[in-house]
C-alpha cells in the first residue's frame, strides 16, 4: 500500500461520528450548566470593546505596528493632501496646510517658480481670510479676537504676495533689459560696419554711429529708440511702434498689480470683502 492510499483511507475514518442523540443531549446538558453558572450573551458594545482590546494587543507587535503606521501614512498622504488644501485659517489643520505649503516652496529650486508659488499661496490665504470674514455670522463679540488676528494675518499675506509679485516683475524687467542690450550690441556691430563701409563720409558716419549709440537710451517718455542706420530706417518705425505697445502694456501691467493690491487693502479695511475677493482673483490670474 502506498503512502497516498494510506492517507486516503485514513481520511475516510472521518466518517466515524458520535450519535446525533448523544450530541443533542450533551448540548442541552451544557446549556443548562452554563445558564446556571453565570453564562451570558455578550452585548454588541462589549463585543466592540473586546475587538478593540484585541486590535490594540495585536498592534503592540512590531510587524503589526509598522504595518499600521505605514497604512496611516499612506492614507494620510492620499486623503490628507486634499483635505489640508481645503482647511481654512480658523481650522485646526490650517497649521499643517501652511507647513506643507512652506515645505513645497522651500523645495522648489527655480527662483522664479518659488516666488510665484509663495505669492500664489499668500493670495490663497488672503482669499480664505476674506471668505471667513465675509460671513456675517462670524462677526460677533466672541470672535472679536479672532477677527483682529485674521485682519493682521491678511495684511501680512497681502504684503508677502505684493513682495513676490514685485520680485517677479523686477526679474522680468531685467530680462527685457538684457535682451534689449544684446540687440543694441548687434546694432553697434552693424553701425560700425556701416561706418567702415562709408569711408568718404568716414568721420561723419562714425560720429553718427556714436551719436546713435549714445542716443540709444530711453527718451523722455521712457521709450527706447532703435538704432537709426540708413538701411534700417523703414523697419525701425514698425519695430518702435511694437516696442511702444509692449512697453505700455508692461507699464500698465506693473502699475495694475500694485494698484490692485492697494485697492484690495482699501476694500478690506472698508469691510468690502466681496469686492476684495474679486480683486484677489484678478491678481491670481495675473500671477498665472
Amino acid at each position, binding site marked *: 500500500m502506498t503512502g497516498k492510499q494510506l492517507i486516503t483511507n485514513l481520511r475516510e475514518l472521518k466518517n466515524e461520528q*458520535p450519535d446525533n442523540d448523544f450530541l443533542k443531549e450533551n448540548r442541552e446538558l451544557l446549556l443548562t450548566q452554563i445558564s446556571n453558572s453565570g453564562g451570558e*450573551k*455578550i452585548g454588541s458594545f462589549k463585543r466592540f470593546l473586546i475587538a478593540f482590546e484585541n486590535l490594540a494587543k495585536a498592534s503592540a507587535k512590531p510587524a503589526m505596528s509598522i504595518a499600521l503606521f505605514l497604512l496611516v501614512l499612506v492614507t494620510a498622504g492620499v486623503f490628507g493632501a486634499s483635505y489640508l488644501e481645503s482647511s481654512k485659517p480658523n481650522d485646526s489643520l490650517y497649521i499643517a496646510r501652511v507647513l506643507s505649503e512652506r515645505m513645497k516652496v522651500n523645495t522648489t529650486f527655480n527662483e522664479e517658480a518659488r516666488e510665484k508659488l509663495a505669492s500664489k499661496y499668500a493670495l490663497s490665504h488672503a482669499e480664505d481670510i476674506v471668505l471667513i470674514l465675509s460671513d456675517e455670522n462670524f462677526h460677533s463679540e466672541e470672535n472679536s479676537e479672532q477677527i483682529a488676528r485674521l485682519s493682521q494675518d491678511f495684511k501680512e499675506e497681502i504684503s508677502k504676495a505684493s513682495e513676490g509679485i514685485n520680485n517677479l516683475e523686477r526679474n522680468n524687467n531685467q530680462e527685457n533689459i538684457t535682451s534689449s542690450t544684446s540687440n543694441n550690441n548687434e546694432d553697434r556691430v552693424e553701425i560700425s560696419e556701416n561706418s567702415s563701409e562709408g569711408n568718404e563720409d568716414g568721420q561723419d558716419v562714425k560720429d553718427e554711429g556714436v551719436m546713435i549709440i549714445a542716443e540709444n537710451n530711453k527718451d523722455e517718455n521712457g521709450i527706447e529708440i532703435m538704432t537709426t542706420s540708413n538701411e534700417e530706417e523703414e523697419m525701425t518705425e514698425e519695430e518702435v511702434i511694437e516696442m511702444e505697445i509692449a512697453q505700455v502694456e508692461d507699464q500698465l501691467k506693473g502699475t495694475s498689480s500694485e494698484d490692485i493690491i492697494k485697492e484690495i487693502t482699501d476694500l478690506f479695511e472698508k469691510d468690502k470683502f466681496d469686492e476684495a475677493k474679486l480683486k484677489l482673483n484678478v491678481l491670481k490670474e495675473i500671477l498665472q
Partner: protein
Amino acid sequence: MPSGLIKKYKEKQALSRLKRKDKEVFISAYDKYGSEINRFIYYKVGKREEANDLTSQVFLKTWEHIQNKSLIKTNTIRALFYRIARNIVIDYYRQKSSETSEEISLDSDDNHIDIEDMASGENSSIDSIDRKSERELIESKLYFLKEDYREIIVMRFVNDLSPDEIAEISGKSKGNVRVLIHRSLKALRDLVSDEMKEKEDRLNKESEADTEKNKENDKEDDKGKNKKNNS
C-alpha cells in the same frame, strides 16, 4: 495572507469572548468541534461509550476553567479543547491503571487497546481480518501503534489539523511534529503492509493446498474409473 490574518483575528476574538463567559460562543464552539473531539477521544480509548463520556467531560471541564479563570493559554478555541481532551484521556488512563494496578505507558510499543466497537463489532483476529476492508484493516492497525503515533495520525489525517496546530496542542516544536508525522505514517504503513503480506501468503498457501487437493481428488477419480473399466 490577509485572509489568514483575518481568520487569526476572528479566532482571537472568539477566544476572548469565551473567556468572558460568552454563552453563544461556547455553544457554537461545541457545535463546531464536538464530534471532532469525540472522534479524537474514540481513537485514543477505542470504546464508544467511554469516548462519549469523556467528550462530555471535556466541555464541562472547559466551562469550569472559564469560571475559575484558569484556562490553559492557547491561540484558538480548537487547540484549547484538544489540550483539555488530552489531559482528560491521561487522567482516564491513570484511573484505569490504578484500577487494574498495572502501569500503562503512553509511549510503550506494546500499548495495544482492545477495540470493542469496531465496524464489524468483533475483536480483531486473524480470521476476521480476512473479511475486513482496507479501511477497517487500517483502523485496526491504528491501535497497534504507539500512543504518540496514533494521536498524531488521528489529529493530522483524520481530523485535519495543521502541523502548527498539532505543535501548539502537543507542546512540541513544528519540526518535531513533522518528523513524528512521517515516522507514524511509516510505522502504520509497515504494520498494514505486513498484515497484507501475511494475508497474501495465507491465500497463496490455501490456494496451493486447494490445488493439491483437487489433484489428489482427480487422481482418485481416475483410479476409480480405471477400476470400473477393468471390471
